[in-house]
């Protein structure tokens, strides 16, 4: 076992355990903090796969921006203590069984699928910013610009929705 294998398993266990904590903890703030841990573990996976740019962007966008937004909303709505209605355990068990069946189905489908193990060319350069930038600004220039329009539209929409006068 090489060191990177140990790192892979460590990051995987951290990601899965904190993801379970997101679902099963009662306090919404703890859920957000667990999700941040999950995102850092996934960013570690990106670094492990030599995709440094995506790893850094992942930390900045998810841990830095999105989760802070979630924490902000939870703070403003004052959801520290649990607000959820009590449900019967039957509902919980049904949800767990359904998710377990989903997992079994996906794993079975992956096991049946013959993923072609093509011989890789040298891919150590794949995740580097230079390679990514070349592809992004040559092949994917139009989608890149459209993404900026999408972000602008989302910003306008969020500001409009947050205005006080709107009544449902």
């Amino acid at each position, binding site marked *: 076992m090489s060191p990177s294998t140990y790192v892979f398993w460590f990051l995987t266990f951290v990601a899965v355990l904190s993801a379970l904590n997101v679902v099963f903890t009662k306090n*919404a703030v703890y859920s957000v903090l667990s999700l941040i841990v999950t995102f850092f573990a996934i960013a570690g996976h990106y670094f492990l796969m030599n995709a440094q740019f995506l790893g850094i962007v992942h930390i900045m966008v998810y841990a830095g921006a999105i989760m802070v937004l979630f924490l902000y909303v939870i703070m403003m709505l004052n959801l520290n203590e649990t607000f959820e209605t009590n449900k019967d355990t039957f509902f919980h068990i049904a949800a767990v069984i359904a998710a377990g069946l*989903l*997992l079994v189905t996906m794993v079975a489908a992956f096991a049946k699928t013959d993923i072609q193990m093509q011989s890789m060319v040298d891919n150590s350069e794949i995740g580097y910013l230079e390679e990514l930038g070349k592809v992004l600004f040559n092949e994917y220039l139009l989608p890149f610009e459209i993404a900026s329009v999408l972000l602008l539209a989302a910003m306008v929409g969020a500001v409009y929705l947050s205005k006080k006068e709107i009544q449902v």
Partner: protein
Amino acid sequence: MEIIPGITINHYLIVSAILFSIGALGVMMRRNAIIMFMCIELMLNAVNLLLVAFSKQWADTSAQVLVFFIMAVAAAEVAVGLAILMMIYRNARTTDTEVLNKLKW
């Protein structure tokens, strides 16, 4: 072929499937709309992880560009979604989906 020494694409397939299932479990089990939203983010991230692994497997940069766009769309989605949640909270005083059942017949 190994993506990193000792780890093949199959390992990443299983990890992504587990993370995706946990996210689906959260959406089905929790009733707080914000937690459900976070679980959707978790599912998006499981898919992103698998895309990066496959981009390594096939030595193809396009998958990582796709991950980049997914991140941009997720950011837009979170901004609009949380604004909607804020508005719902202001009108209904709750984000519990068990209470927000006016469209349910």
